[in-house]
Structure formats: C-alpha cells, structure tokens
C-alpha cells in the first residue's frame, strides 16, 4: 500500500482523474483535471497549489550543524544566514554530483535540508564527533507550494510577512491558527512560496489556504504541469537531466556541478578555506578546465522545425508534454557535440525548448547547434540556438 501525503484527504477529493503517480513512495497526482496544460496556465497566469510533501526532509540541528553542513554541502552554507534558504548540491570526493536540494536555515543551529532521494544514512554516517543531530522528518512535515503571479497577494492574506520575504527568504506565521514556515522557493521559476507544516496540522492549513484563494482562479496542479514549468525555469530533475554519482555504473552517467551549470555556486571558492567533500576535485576541474560539458538551454528554430515536418506532409507537432530522453546535439559540421535531456513545446515562449549539455566551447549564448530526433522513422536535425537559462524568467520571480 502506497503512502499518502498529509493532504491526501483533500487532494483525492480534487483529483477528478482518479489517477495517481508514485513519487518517493507516495501517491502524487499527475493532474487533477483532464488538462495538465490548463493547470500549467493557472500557475503562469494566476496561481497554482502543489502538494510537494513527498520530498525527503532532514532536520539537521545542534551546535555544530553549520560546521557539519559546510563539510557536506558544496555551496558555502555559511553564506546562508538564519531565515534564508539556499539551493545547494553535494558531491562525492571526485567532484561528481550526488544530489541537489534546498537547505533552509530556520534558526541558529537549526537547518532543514530537502532532497529528492533518501539521504539519511549518507548524512548520519558523516556526523563523526560533531555535536549535530540528523532527523528524518520526511513524514512529519507536509509541504505545499503556492506558485504564480497571484501567490504573494493571496498568501499575504494569511501570512502578512510574506510581502517582505526576499527570494529564497523564510518567514513564519500561522494559517488556520496552526504554525507554518513559509519559504520563497519553488520549482516553477515563477513568483512563489512553499508552506511547511507539521503533519497533524496539514488539513487545517490546507482548508484555510483553500478558503483564502477561493474565487481567485487558483488551481491545484500535478506533476505533469510541474514538469513543464521546471523546464522553462531551467531547474534540473534528478534521474532525468542528471544522475546521482552514488549509483552510476560509469562516469558517462556522472556530472560535475560545473557541467550542470552551477559554477555560480562557487564564486569565491578559491578564497575560502572551507573543506568539503569534492573540493579538491572541483578546484582541479576549474583550474585545468577539464569539464566535459556545460548545461545549456536550447531554443529550436521554428522555421527549421516547421520545414522538416511540412516537407513530410505533417502538421508540425507542438506537444507540451516533456520528452525525457537523450536527443543528440550536433554542430554545423554535423559532429556530435552534446545531448538534450528534456524537450518540450513551451506555451509561454511559443517555441520548442530543451535542456541540454553541450561541449563547453559551444555553450556561449547564441551558438547555433542542431538537435536530432526522428520524423517518419528517419533521423532529422533541426537548428537551435543556445540561450541563457532560465529560458523563462519573469521579473516577478525575484521582485
């Protein structure tokens, strides 16, 4: 029997399709109503609510919590003061990515780390003699994301402090008179927040939130819409865009954070003396420029795309459902120079887009490449250009 999230009584009442996905051992709605695209538009044009409870969550507390995390996480957690959150990654000693996640610095010596995969043993095994406790609170905390242009105004009716919370900031408040933590984070690349609540309070919080948004065009959205939103937002998905080094059989399935486009996490690395797992390898990769790839956004040339289909007498498909497969990327000389891992038609950009890794020398914005897929059972290549990530980046996200 699959677990259900603390909000399941409400989400199951809303799920008109009766279909569920499995996510981290929980039932998770793929879509609530027939059109996932309609849910997507609710997020981009009004607001949507997503039950993100299945995330793994670890409470890391104690006098040495910061010291501990500084040694585990590759991004400098010391730069994350209380009431702030930080997108981060952790590496193996060869500098390959194990995982990414968000760490919340909730209070002095008190952190919450979220992750897509189980990490309890990994963390607990590395505590050593530090004064730090690791607690798997995955099932103790429910989480709801409210994302979209209306999210701030609507949430402020319940937690007024959110109007002052900066991008990746954290605040606390009450919803339905139950205590909540609110972080200005999400997986949509839009203005948005995540609400963290103790499991017994989950339904009360859901009901109060739902009452507050009634009549404002807010929809619950499922994994299908989320997968669209995150590609536009340039947010990577574990086991789709990259794999954990821990379970890879060879280095082709491993990635360094530089290869995944996260070099911005390591500005000033040379000047800090922090010792963390993977540091030496990371410094070596940066100085010797040994990265094999760079993460790049690709925007497909619409004329070339149409041309290929029209030549075959077909209607050029504009399918918003992401394709999560390796598609090869070529240069003008038709040499293989990379691979795309996520591909979709973006309704808001009106273009086919992809998240891809290309050879580092081709990662400059504007570089022309060619994306390969099949039309009528034949390989076809269409022109695309490298574009800055995130491909969709509304001002409101950080405003």
């Amino acid at each position, binding site marked *: 029997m699959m677990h259900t999230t603390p909000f399941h009584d409400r989400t199951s009442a809303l799920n008109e399709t009766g279909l569920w996905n499995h996510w981290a051992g929980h039932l998770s709605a793929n879509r609530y*109503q*027939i*059109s996932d*695209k*309609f849910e997507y*538009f609710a997020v*981009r*044009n*009004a607001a949507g609510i997503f039950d993100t409870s299945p995330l793994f969550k670890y409470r890391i507390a104690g006098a040495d919590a910061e010291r501990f995390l500084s040694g585990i996480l590759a991004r400098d957690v010391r730069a994350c003061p209380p009431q702030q959150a930080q997108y981060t990654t952790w590496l193996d000693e060869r500098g390959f990515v194990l995982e990414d996640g968000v760490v919340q610095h909730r209070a002095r010596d008190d952190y919450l780390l979220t992750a897509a995969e189980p990490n309890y043993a990994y963390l607990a095994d590395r505590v050593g003699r530090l004064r730090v406790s690791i607690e798997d609170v995955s099932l103790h905390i429910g989480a709801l994301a409210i994302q979209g242009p*209306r999210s701030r105004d609507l949430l402020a009716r319940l937690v007024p402090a959110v109007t002052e919370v900066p991008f990746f900031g954290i605040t606390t408040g009450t919803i339905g008179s139950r205590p909540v933590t609110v972080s200005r984070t999400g997986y949509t690349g839009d203005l948005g927040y995540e609400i963290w609540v103790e499991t017994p309070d989950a339904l009360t919080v859901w009901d109060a939130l739902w009452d507050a948004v*009634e*009549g*404002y*065009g807010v929809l619950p959205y499922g994994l299908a819409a989320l997968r669209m939103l995150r590609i536009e937002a340039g947010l990577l998905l574990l086991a789709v865009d990259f794999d954990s080094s821990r379970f890879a059989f060879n280095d082709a399935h491993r990635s360094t954070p530089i290869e995944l486009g996260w070099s911005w996490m390591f500005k000033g690395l040379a000047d800090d003396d922090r010792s963390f797992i993977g540091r030496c390898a990371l410094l070596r990769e940066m100085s010797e420029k040994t990265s094999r790839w760079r993460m790049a956004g690709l925007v497909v040339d*619409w*004329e070339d795309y149409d041309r290929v289909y029209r030549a075959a*007498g077909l*209607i*050029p*498909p*504009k*399918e*918003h459902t992401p394709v999560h497969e390796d598609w090869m990327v070529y240069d003008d000389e038709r040499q293989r120079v990379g691979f795309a891992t996520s591909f979709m*038609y973006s*309704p*808001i*950009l*009106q*273009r086919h887009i992809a998240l891809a890794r290309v050879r580092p020398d081709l990662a400059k914005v504007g570089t022309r490449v060619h994306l390969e897929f099949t039309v009528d059972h034949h390989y076809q290549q269409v022109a695309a250009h490298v574009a800055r990530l995130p491909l969709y980046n509304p001002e409101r996200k950080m405003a």
Partner: protein
Amino acid sequence: MWRGCHSITQNERWRDMDRYDAIVIGGGHNGLVNGAYLARGGLKTLILERRRLVGGAAITEELRPGFWFTTFSYALSLLRPQIIHELELTKQGFLPLLMPNRFAPMDDGDYLLFTRDHDENLREIARHSRHDADAYEQYSHDLDMVCQAIKPLLDTVPPDIFSDDPEELVALAALGSHLRKLDRRTLHNAVRLLTGSAADFLDDYFESDILKGYLASTSIIGSNVGPRSQGSGLVLLFHSLGEHDGEFGTWAFHKGGNGGFTQVLARAAQAFGAEIRLEAPVVRVLTRDGEATGVALEDGTEIGADVVVSGLDPRRTFLELVDPRELPDDLVEEIRRLKFRGVSSKVNFALDGLPRYPGLGDRGDIFRGFTNIGPSIDYLEHAFDEAKYGWYSQSPYIDAAIQSTIDPDMAPPSKHVLSCFVQYTPYELRESDWDAERQRMADQVQATLERYFPRFADLILQREVQTPLDIERTVGLSEGNIFAGEFLVPQMFFFRPAPGWSQYRTPIAGYYQCGSGTHPGGCVMGAPGRLAAGQILKDRSRATGD
C-alpha cells in the same frame, strides 16, 4: 509643398522631420501588424488611430470597475504563427491561454461536453450516436487534411491571374503544382467545402443533431448564410484553419482578451520603432499625379509619406479615403457591389457568479471555453430565416464565453464576464432600426440564455450591447461586417477585395491596403497586414534597385 522640398528654412526642416516613409491608417490588428513589419523593415513608420485606443475591433475595455469586456472580437485562433515569431511577440507579453472545454447545451436538458481527453470526447459523442463517434474521427482527419492543404495559401500573396508578368505566371504554376500534389479525397473535400453548404458536408458524416448543430455553428459566424446555404462550407473551413499551439481548429483566449493581444502588437510595433498616434482620424489620402503623398487628418494637419497603407475596409479604402474619380471605373463598381451585410452582434454581461446548467449540477468547469447555443442545424437555420426577411432571430445562435474562468484578471474574485456573440442580427432591419431595437434584441439573447440557464437574469450586474450599427459606428467596419467584407467565393483569394487588386496595391502608386478586406480575410489573423508589408518592402527595394 513638403514633398521634394529641399529648402532649409526652419519651418521646412520641421516639416521634413515630421515626414514618414510609411503611414498606416487605422490601428486595428492588421494596421499594427503592418506597421510593425514596415518598421522592422527599416521604414520610419507612423500608425494613425482614430480612437483613444488601438485594436480596432480587437479591444478590451473596463466598462465597470474590475470587469473587463472584450467589446467586440473575443478569441484567438487564426493568428499566423509566423507573426508571433517574426515580431517577437512573446517579448511583449503574448500569452494565448488554453480554453480546455467546449459545451453545447440542448433543449431537453442534455448536452455535449468536450474536454481535452480525446477518448472521453468520443464517448461523449457516442452518448448521442455511436455511429457519429467513429465518424467524428474521420471528419476531423478529413478536415485536418484540407486545412493542411489550404494553409499555405494564408501565407501567400494570391498570384495575379490577369497578369503576363513571368513572376506571376511562376506563382500561378506553383499554386497549380501545390493543388496537383493533393490526394483526390482532400482536393474533393476542399471543393465541397469551398462551394457547398456546411449542412450537406456534415450530413455526409453524422446523424446526431447536437453534434451537427455544434459543428455547423462555425459555418455561420459573421456571415449572412445559414448552415444550409451554399457558401457556409467556406465559412466552416475558414474557422477551422486556425490553431492553438499546433492544434488545428482550436481557439485560445489571449491574456487580457483580444485587447490584451493588440496591446502586445502595439508594443511590438513600437519596439521596432513605429510611432503610434491616437485620436488622429484620417479624412483623406493625399495624392498628386496618381501617387500617394501623405494623409490629411480631421483637424487639418497634413503628414507626408512615401507610402500610405489603409487598414480600413475596402469601401473606406477606395470610396472614402480617396476620391473615386482617381480610380478606374471597374474597380469603383466592384467595390460598390462588394457585400458586407453584417449579421453579428455582441451582448456582453458582467455577472455576479457562474450560471448553472441543471443537467450538470454545480459544475463550473463547463464554462472554461465556448458555450454553444445552437443545438441543431434546424435551430441555426430557423435563426437565419428571420434574418433573410430583415429581422433578428427570436431564438438566436449564441457563442458564449465566460472569459474570467480562463483569465481571472478579467473580473473581480468570484465575479465573471460573459461575452456573447449573437446571430442573426442583420444590419438592415425591416421597418425599424437598431437604435430602436437594440435592447429588445438583447432581451431576446437574455431570454435565450435563461432557457438554458435558469435564473440567469439574477446574476446580471450589467449588460452591454453592440449591434452591427454600433460596430460600424465605433469600429468603422462598414455595415458592421466583422470580416471587412463577407466570406463569399467571389470575394476571396484572387478576388479579395476586387479582381486584379488582391496584391495589396491600389491603382494609386504608393497607396496600399492591409485590412481584413484583403486576402486572406478577417478574424484576428494578421496575415493581410503581414503580406501587405511584404509587398510594400518588396516594391520599395525594387524602386531603389536594391
């Protein structure tokens, strides 16, 4: 006096600065598209709009605080995708929102409800006719094949079949070759649609009244035809040529309505350097020796330009903006007999809540898309009967859309705006006029809605009516025809707006046309504006020998 003047007085220099390469008359969607392309092509371009806002018939107005009405045009489908890309509209906020459902209530309380689930839709049709569920697959495919065949014509200047110019002969040969490549079934279906009635075409596939009524509704939109009239097939085909994100025949609601869309176009035009002047009505195109030299505004201002483009309908373009004496008699005669005969009205409502359809309990999601009041071909044809004899339908066809269910910014929380496109309401009424009948017609619309949605009247906060006469007065479309000239075979393609003048030029050098009265026609398509700009830029590069 400003043309070709090289004097260096201060006065003359000012006039020189105020001179444009191109002036576009009318800031409707085609005028904006045209102006944007001309500016993108490097021309110093001025777009002149008579009203206080651009958009023409594609505007959104806050007629009650917090309630935004798509006063006239109300949805998007036929916009050519090239325009989105070439004018970089997404940078300016282009956002076509999905309308996931389509709802057609019936007189007996039953309904036809289409969602985004194909299999569910077939099951829904099968509730009415098992035969039609299968036939619907064939119909959709056949129609898609015809659309695929016809669509390239929307992006092509019609060849001049009366010309011996080798370039035109090549274009004509290309057209012939395109048609030759079509399979027999598709070509035959195309001809059946272009020349026949929608009812005949649909009868060949279906038996269910509700399905046929629903599908036939698109065959009458904006046109003085019933579903059994020859020519309704063409209107059906035309409305199937649109797409939303690659899906043929589907419609979207632009963020902020079609007014939101034309604001996007205006920003795009400005981003390319075009200037837009509001409340600047043009009364006359200035000409000298058979060449356009500029325009005169109502306030007497004269502005010079090498190119003048009319985005107005053919009647205004040829008979009002210029003196018909400057034009060949044949052309004047052809424009005079061009058919307009507007039959469509809008009745828009501000609502206190969602209507309720008894057969579906309290489901509000049924309104996330068009609601089609036209339950059978008979219903539509009866509605047309009254129009034939100069009166408005007592049980009108209504294409309703509660747009606030798609874009919540259109109305305050839990309130709604309802756009009702209504037919038939002929421009010419027998022994009465629209100033006398406007509210009575709207009462009929309201009563019709009340029949399907009991207690509808209780929800009404405000009602706003636009008859063909109002469309003509406000927007300037002759006889309130929403396509700037009816969709009739003799008024399409080679012949739109007149034989020999389908390539956006006019007999006056430097004077062009870019409105919906030119090929390919009306709807918020933008193709006339785009194709006209292509001709203008091509003519200019030829003239300068580039």
